[in-house]
């Protein structure tokens, strides 16, 4: 059977078709949850954020014109929701400031899938690296963390990221460059 495009599912959902909406969720819930996990580092926060994102997406569904990809539009909303979430959680911390060190529990949710035939040792190394990176990401300011998330995990181009964040491409480049500098320093310290 032919799979329906995101645009078609959106149109169906707008007419009140719940099945189409649930199919749309199933396509993107994993990537949105991954995004939320990396942005919040807490599974229950990530779950709340994911729920907020999808509610917000549904409420704004009529404004989706289909001019760009649905994924880009979805992550644009996800960014604003996570920014809002971050401000609620840390009202005294600026989006450009580095947060205080937190007790990260990312490993609680890791390793749930993809075991299969992959070598267990390399899998463990990969998991360790991922955990280290994600812990390091939590020490970045929100504005730099979101650029790292969208660039390396979301695989968006700089122009797309700029459009999603509502800033210039040069700002995105600067934030990424600064974030990489901090990542390098933090990773070096952690490895030492």
């Amino acid at each position, binding site marked *: 059977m032919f799979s329906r495009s995101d645009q078609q599912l959106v149109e169906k959902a707008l007419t009140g078709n719940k099945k189409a909406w649930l199919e749309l969720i199933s396509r993107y819930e994993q990537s949105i949850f991954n995004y939320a996990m990396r942005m919040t580092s807490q599974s229950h926060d990530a779950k709340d954020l994911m*729920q907020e994102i999808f*509610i917000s997406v549904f409420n704004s569904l009529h404004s989706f014109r289909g001019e760009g990809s649905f994924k880009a539009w979805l992550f644009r909303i996800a960014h604003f929701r996570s920014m809002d979430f971050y401000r609620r959680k840390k009202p005294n911390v600026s989006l450009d400031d580095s947060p205080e060190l937190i007790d990260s529990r990312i490993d609680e949710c890791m390793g749930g899938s993809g075991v299969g035939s992959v070598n267990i040792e390399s899998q463990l190394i990969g998991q360790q690296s991922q955990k280290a990176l994600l812990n390091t990401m939590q020490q970045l300011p929100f504005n730099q963390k979101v650029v790292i998330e969208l660039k390396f995990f979301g695989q968006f181009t700089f122009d797309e990221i700029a459009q999603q964040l509502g800033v210039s491409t040069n700002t995105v480049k600067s934030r990424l460059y600064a974030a990489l500098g901090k990542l390098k320093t933090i990773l070096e310290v952690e490895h030492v």
Partner: protein
Amino acid sequence: MSDQYESISNEDLMALWLDNQLNDKQRAAFEQRCLNDDDFAELVQSANQTSVIADTAKDFELPTWDKENSFNFEKYKKVSQPWWQWQGLPLSSVVCSFVAIFMVLTDLNIESRDGRFSIGFGSQLPQETINKLVEQKLNDKLLEQQKTNQVLFAQYLQTLQNQQTENSTQLTQYLLTSSRQERREDFAELIKYVNDQRRDDQLFYANQLKDFQQELSFQVGQRPNYTSPNSGDFDSTQLNDE
């Protein structure tokens, strides 16, 4: 040329490398920068490491959550599209545009005549029809002009007649008045003339009578109570009375 690529910033080079958009010269500049700039090289290494981790990253275990709760269609209905965002609006605009273009291209001709609208295509009428229309228009105009002229002429004639009648009346009145005056004057003149003539006759007869009296007085005797008309004591009223 190489200066151009040497002047490119580290951030731009990094961005081009991450988006895999480096051309040959930019790639050469990038590699050169990695060799000469340790900080830049370390950042590239960091980016590379992050990219590898991200590519091999596993999904987090998805929690169970109430997906259906996000489908709040009743709430959505309240924020349904306003009428000006109706999807049919652009379509109707396009249709109207095409209709307008069609009308322009086909020289659509809409005529209103005698309270009727007629729609036709092509504004170029045959020359014969145009001539007929012009002739008809001219005839109509001429007829209208003639009617107007006739009315004006009749009015003018009437006015002229009235004026002439009035003039004739005035002339007659004048003539009558003037002839009466003349006749009155003529009669007065005649009466005056007759009176003068009578006076002359009376004077003549008075002289004759005086002469005759003198003759008589010579013959019969003198009558002293008689005065001569030529003397200063003569009273003409005496003649009238006589």
